[in-house]
């Protein structure tokens, strides 16, 4: 009895002597995570406390209505309701139009037989991914300007009316979705192209022997091969349906289109950081992340139920 305890202690000592450096290496990242990822969670409390810009939330009294004052206020706030609607609308449009774009593009690139040209095409369609939304807004403001943008100059030269791409709410939504596709469709093909290379080439040969033409091969071999990838990525997009980017709507927006461009992240910035209404905007942010988390968990279990690999 005494011996085995002694042995175990020795084993532990050996273990520590050998691997203590691993804990040393982890110290910095773990400290970082605790300070900059977990400490902020304490400040979530301010969503349930009275608004005060000087004191820490744990020093403050609870807000009215059992602490849920700010959630009630948020849902009475027109700006927030608009922001919620805009967030969901823009994300749904992105999902509907932006999600299939890289799949189609990957199928097209995969059919391209000239190797050199394929490489050049890939390099160029990856480029927009590396540009910031600020740069893209600069490019778009020019290209799509109402009076003297390239697109409208060309439209006028062929005898059409100019289109207010960024200055009327309806057109702005279209431009927003299109620019999103322009930026990320090329980049997102990488995953699909990698998945295509792992499809068994014998399947294509068998299809060719059966007399399948190019479109049939895409439909019966390539697309089924992409199915698991498509589903995993679709889950991730569904999980983000209530999430909102900040840079993209913020950079592309202007005061003529705020009715459609103000999303939750912009609401939080305007009310919270600029307007110092920490409690209200914090309640909104918390609402967004909690619902977002539920969406993600729901989408993941849905995928698993249909026999696909989830994301965790």
């Amino acid at each position, binding site marked *: 009895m005494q011996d085995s305890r002694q042995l175990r202690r020795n084993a532990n000592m050996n273990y520590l002597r050998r691997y203590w450096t691993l804990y040393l290496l982890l110290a910095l990242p773990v400290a970082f995570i605790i300070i900059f*990822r977990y*400490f902020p969670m304490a*400040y979530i409390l*301010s969503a349930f406390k009275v608004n005060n810009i000087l004191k820490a939330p744990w020093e403050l009294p609870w807000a009215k209505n059992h602490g849920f004052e700010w959630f009630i206020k948020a849902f009475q706030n027109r700006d927030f309701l608009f922001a919620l609607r805009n967030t969901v609308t823009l994300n749904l449009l992105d999902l509907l139009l932006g999600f299939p774009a890289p799949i189609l593009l990957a199928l097209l690139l995969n059919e391209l037989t000239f190797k050199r040209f394929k490489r050049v095409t890939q390099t160029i369609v990856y480029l927009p991914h590396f540009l*910031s939304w*600020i740069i893209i807004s600069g490019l778009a403001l020019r*290209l799509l300007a109402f009076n003297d943008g*390239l697109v409208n100059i060309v439209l006028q030269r062929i005898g059409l009316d100019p289109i207010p791409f960024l200055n009327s709410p309806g057109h702005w939504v279209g431009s927003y979705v299109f620019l999103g596709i322009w930026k990320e469709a090329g980049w997102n093909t990488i995953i699909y192209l990698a998945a295509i290379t792992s499809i068994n080439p014998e399947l294509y040969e068998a299809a060719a022997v059966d007399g399948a033409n190019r479109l049939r091969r895409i439909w019966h071999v390539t697309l089924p091969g992409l199915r698991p990838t498509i589903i*995993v990525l679709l889950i991730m997009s569904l999980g983000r349906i209530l999430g909102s980017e900040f840079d993209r709507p913020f950079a592309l927006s202007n005061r003529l289109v705020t009715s459609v461009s103000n999303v939750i992240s912009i609401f939080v910035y305007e009310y919270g*950081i600029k307007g110092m209404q920490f409690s209200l905007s914090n309640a909104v942010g918390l609402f967004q992340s909690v619902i977002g988390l539920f969406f993600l968990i729901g989408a993941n279990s849905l995928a698993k139920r249909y026999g696909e690999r989830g994301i965790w």
Partner: protein
Amino acid sequence: MIKSRSAKFNDYLIAALCLLLIFIALLPILNVLARSLSSSDALIRNEVLLWPKGWNLDAYKTVLQDSKYTWSLGWTAILTVICTVLSMTITILCAYPLIYDQLKGRKIINGFIVLTMYFSAGTIPNYLLLKSLNMLDKPIVLIVPNMLSIFNMIILRSFFYGIPESLRESAEIDGAGPIRTLIRIYLPLSASVLATLSLFYAVGRWNGFSDALMYMSKNRKYYPIQLLLYQILQNTTQIEVATQEGFFPPGISETLKMATVMFATVPIVLVYPWLQRYFISGVTIGAIKG
């Protein structure tokens, strides 16, 4: 396999479609490039589409002579280097120990770290924390709070997993500790993924905007290039503010704006194609293990 005439025709049709896509991808950039190199008169007459008219480099010269602008470009470049080095260090420190089966409590530590990818406190709590740490409006706020990306850490960890464990074991038999194994074996074998992640971090910092807007708004001197660019691109009132504060001589012209956009774009365009081979594998690992 001999291709039929119609299959060959289809090949060319697909190539033509791809040419069209290349054109769409480059169109906005070519347009702005052409405008930045044109004379103001040609711009006013709406003559410039994709090729400059009244060719000149005046706009670029003006930008380069403007000390606030060159300072911001230089500062952002320095910031990008600092952030990339620090981020890579902490990412390696985080990913490497987590591949050891022998590490006690590995699952708990791992879950503790990865959880923050799915649930974060949010904009306001982060802001309040930085405020209480007294970091707002100081340059350090652009460096530290986003130093570690869990997503990048997972990519690196997956890559480390792919390195045969036998290499590690033989190093241990030779008496090498974990740190020596990391430096002598793991890092040299991971050059490609390290290059990829460095690119991700560097591009993220170079393009970073919202943290500067939210945490640095009062410290104009240390504005990174994207925030300065945003202000320049915004409506006339803000341009007037910038002009009054000496960002540009009065009467900021269209070509100047275009030249500033090009300055922020060019560094990225020069760097990323060389790393293409690497980042494709990086993205693929990330997708498998995301």
